[in-house]
């Protein structure tokens, strides 16, 4: 196992994507399709008292307007009450923009026009949407995360950094809009939708509509960006499916971006107070991390204690105390957005590490290297692999770190531009999910593998192809990789950087088993050619194998049954006997213009440790994407909320500022590519999330080095440096 490094391979679906061939959910051409649009609530909290639809029905082309009267009460979900948004139309309004009606028409234009003339009546109640408002926010703490005796050690520490860092509300803004296309035909419901969780959607739909999951298929072959926003079932999906079932025609809803801001998940604002103590010798001894995060009134995701996933597992700091609090508000549920918890948590923690290094007069790279770790203080178990020191050393070498003058404001260009070099580390749990893979190789030259996974641009098909082709000689051009389709294989949610760990070990196992079956079949005969030729020679039209794979330590039956039911079955990062984390080191140069104080990022070097690299090309792309987003999240992105109204003011691409090409300069990336001996048979760890971890702190640390100004909130904007 865990043999030689993988060679570079072009994305297997690059050409078809460039040619525009893949069919995304909203592009599925279907005869007789109807178009839908939702009507948003124009209050932040209260009740809809009347919903007149006569004028909408008079718009030519309108087929039907669905109201809460067309839906029964929402079924009680396993966890209790539905956190907003509810999966159907209801009269009670718990956040601004909650859908209150669905207009279905022969054309999109008619649907929009009718939606615009609907003027529901509401009874509004007082509401609170911002945690800094003086009333209305409910603080709801969960259990602490603790190792050692933090408060005593902090009291004894020679030096303590005590600072608070804030990260704003941000929205994913995937390029592809959220959409649902539902078809009810011959007693079966088919849903085409870009989701990261097709089996989960299938089972949620069954619950919401009161039908058997066996008659539902969810197809998500390509997703135009997920980043966690397409993890939960969208509030629209069951509504659109019900409309299709009642009308007996396919119904499509593409949610306008302004409405996505209001109904889908987002990265919640979070506040992190860090107390970091070091002893007289400069060893870090204790951390207290108080994390607070926006949440809806009833929601549980994302859980705030997961802000403590990464910080304790980067350095050998034996004492850690993490507190975690929901700030409950009249908002829709937040969710998981790329690098969900470590992004804000490590902006805080890795800024504090920088502040500590400066306070101790230590070089921030050397200081990090001197505080290396081999165990997870939360469990006492060893870290399965930690090549962070290699990332730091390699990054420092490529960046030219030894040229850095440690004094803030010491590096100034001839025109007065201030130059700053910053570093930060990142970590993210390396998790693994079960998979059932069925693999067929045919004598006619084709092959197909069906398994769990969703392609969101990260290149999972290429990773699966790498895994299969490593073990068996087949025609790569004719290998079909079926993922995201509940009718082909049960689909686990693809998030949390576990997509590759969920798919590749299973694909490798399937390919190995196929080769073994073939050898058995040939029974000692020496047949030339690839597997297809060999099958043809022995007159076997095809061979099928199926394998089931679970994470280390998982109860096999339980995990596979959860997978089949569209549930979660996540192994790690705490496995029996070890903890697995991925790591990264970011080195950033910033330049601050002397007069107007514009912040530019001319170069970044980022080196990642994700165990064995399965697909070098798409892995490098993941790092580029993570760094770009780190720049965007640090210097650009913030969703703005006016507490007098609720909702989101800058709810489109014109006003929600994401980084553009002109904001991005040189990004150099590298991968350590050393297999993790314990994480899984392939030796891989997750990558897609860790690439962003620590990036914000590296930029903030560079800005401090350039200017002497420590900014402890995001985004860092021009006015922070004037």
């Amino acid at each position: 196992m865990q043999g030689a490094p993988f060679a570079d391979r072009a994305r297997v679906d690059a050409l078809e994507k460039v040619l525009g061939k893949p069919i995304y959910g909203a592009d599925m051409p279907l005869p007789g399709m109807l178009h839908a649009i939702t009507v948003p609530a124009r209050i932040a909290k209260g009740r809809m008292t009347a919903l007149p639809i006569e004028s909408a029905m008079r718009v030519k082309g309108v087929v039907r307007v669905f109201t809460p009267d067309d839906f029964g009460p929402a079924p009680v979900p396993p966890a209790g009450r539905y956190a907003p948004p509810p999966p159907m139309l209801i009269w009670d309004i718990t956040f601004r923009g909650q859908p209150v009606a669905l207009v279905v028409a022969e054309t999109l234009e008619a649907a929009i026009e009718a939606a615009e003339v609907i003027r529901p009546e509401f009874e509004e109640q007082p509401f609170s949407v911002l945690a800094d408002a003086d009333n209305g926010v409910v603080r709801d703490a969960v259990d602490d995360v603790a190792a050692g005796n933090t408060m005593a050690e902090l009291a004894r520490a020679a030096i303590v950094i005590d600072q608070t860092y804030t990260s704003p509300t941000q929205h994913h803004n995937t390029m592809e809009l959220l959409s649902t296309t539902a078809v009810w035909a011959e007693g079966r419901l088919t849903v085409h939708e870009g989701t990261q969780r097709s089996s989960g959607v299938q089972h949620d739909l069954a619950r919401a509509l009161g039908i058997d999951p066996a008659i539902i298929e969810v197809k998500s072959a390509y997703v135009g960006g997920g980043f966690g926003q397409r993890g939960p079932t969208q509030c629209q999906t069951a509504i659109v499916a019900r409309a299709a079932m009642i009308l007996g025609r396919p119904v499509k809803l593409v949610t306008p971006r302004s409405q996505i801001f209001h109904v889908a998940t987002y990265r919640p604002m979070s506040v992190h107070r860090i107390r970091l103590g070091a002893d007289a010798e400069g060893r870090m001894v204790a951390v207290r991390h108080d994390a607070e995060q926006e949440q809806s009134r009833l929601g549980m995701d994302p859980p705030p204690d997961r802000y403590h996933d990464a910080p304790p597992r980067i350095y050998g700091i034996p004492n850690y105390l993490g507190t975690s609090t929901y700030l409950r508000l009249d908002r829709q549920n937040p969710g998981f957005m790329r690098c969900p918890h470590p992004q804000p948590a490590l902006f805080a923690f890795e800024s504090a590490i920088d502040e500590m290094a400066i306070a101790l007069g230590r070089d921030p790279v050397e200081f990090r290297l001197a505080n290396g770790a081999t165990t997870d203080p939360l469990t006492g178990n060893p870290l399965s692999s930690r090549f962070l020191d290699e990332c730091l050393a390699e990054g420092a070498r490529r960046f030219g770190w030894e040229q850095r003058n440690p004094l803030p404001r010491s590096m100034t260009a001839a025109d007065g531009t201030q130059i700053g070099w910053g570093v930060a580390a990142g970590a993210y749990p390396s998790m693994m999910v079960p998979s059932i893979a069925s693999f067929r190789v045919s004598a006619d030259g084709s092959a197909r593998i069906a398994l769990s996974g969703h392609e969101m641009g990260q290149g999972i098909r290429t990773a699966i192809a790498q895994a299969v082709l490593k073990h068996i000689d087949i025609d790569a051009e004719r290998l079909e990789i079926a993922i995201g389709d509940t009718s082909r294989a049960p689909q686990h949610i693809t998030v949390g950087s576990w997509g590759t760990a969920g798919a590749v070990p299973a694909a490798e196992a399937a390919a190995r088993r196929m080769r073994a079956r073939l050898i058995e079949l040939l029974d000692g005969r020496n047949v030339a050619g690839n597997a297809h030729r060999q099958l043809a020679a022995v007159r076997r039209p095809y061979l099928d194998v199926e394998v089931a794979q679970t994470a280390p330590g998982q109860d096999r039956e339980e995990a596979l049954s959860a997978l089949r039911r569209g549930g979660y079955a996540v192994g790690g990062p705490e496995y029996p006997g070890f903890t697995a984390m991925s790591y990264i080191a970011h080195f950033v140069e910033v330049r601050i213009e002397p007069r107007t104080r514009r912040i530019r990022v001319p170069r970044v070097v980022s080196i990642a440790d994700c165990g064995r690299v399965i697909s070098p090309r798409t892995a490098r792309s993941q790092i580029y994407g993570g760094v770009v987003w780190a720049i965007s999240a640090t210097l650009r992105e913030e969703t703005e909320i006016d507490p007098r109204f609720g909702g989101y003011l800058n709810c489109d691409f014109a006003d929600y500022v994401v980084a553009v090409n002109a904001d991005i300069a040189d990004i150099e990336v590298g991968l350590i590519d050393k297999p993790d001996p314990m994480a899984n048979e392939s030796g891989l760890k997750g990558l897609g999330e860790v690439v962003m971890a620590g990036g914000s702190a590296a930029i903030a640390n560079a800005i401090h080095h350039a200017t002497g100004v420590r900014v402890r909130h995001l985004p860092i904007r021009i006015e922070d440096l004037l």
Partner: protein
Amino acid sequence: MQPIRYIRPSTVREAIAAHASLGDGARYIAGGTTLYDLMKLNIERPTGLVDVTFIEGLETIDTSGDTLRFGANARMADVATDPIVQSQYPVLSEALSKAASQQLRNMATVGANLLQRTRCMYFRNGYGGASGGAADYPCNKRIPGSGCAAIGGLDRGQAVLGVSDACTAVSPGDWPVALVAMDARIEVAGPGGERMLPISELYPLPGETPHIEFTLEPSEIIVGIVIGKNAAGARSTYHKIRDRESFAFALASAAVALEMSGDRVNAARIALGGVATRPWRADAAEAMLIGSDLTDDLAMAAGRAAFADAVPGRSNGFKVELGARTVADAIMIAAARRPL
């Protein structure tokens, strides 16, 4: 469906007649990049469109005589890359090329550009269209008399100059700022005949009537833009500071053109964008420069003078400092350019 009459005249006279015949709901349309956007937001609901892009000769760029003349239909991209404009009037070329995106500049026209409407989020993102937000924000531009949500609200992007109790919305365009610095005149034609309008007179202050954004009379059409050739053009720049390096409106911008002998400033033209309710001529800053030797400190003092009358709101106070520095930077960039 709301029916829209669509008319495609081939002369200015026909266009005016068509527009007048369609009544209040009539709109001229050129590249459509402003109008369609506002229609999707339900801010504009025209009942008739008069497409001016088929009017012959309206896209001409003429730099041969004593003036620069741009037909109203000249594309932003074409004017930005005209060799004379680029080399002798960088302030004009840069104001265009730093606006919007290449795709938009290929569609959008320099005449209609003068009539774009504010980017104030409360104005644009109020409830109304499927692409709008979910709140009915009071907005005196959108619904006269309804109030202003930006005052006392999220006002980081709002104006600090020329504001009133009814409105603080920024005049968004870059090109109009450069034209104000260049003392451009607008050729206008209407049912009552033709007239030349100094660009500074196109834009009223918001006062109590912020919904009145332009001084054009009903059915008047912009035919062209005329700029007297001047020596300052060669020593000029349009400096634009924004929340990202491309594809964003200005937080603060400055159009600066100078005539100098040695270090001494003989003439200065300075206008501001992103900070005011109309394209803003900064006379006080100009006066401070003229007749003096240019230094960094003088440039900064001129920048500060430009904002002496600023009235900041809750969170846009930084625009006073940023704006002053942007002016100072622009003055030094312009000064470093050598006349041909």
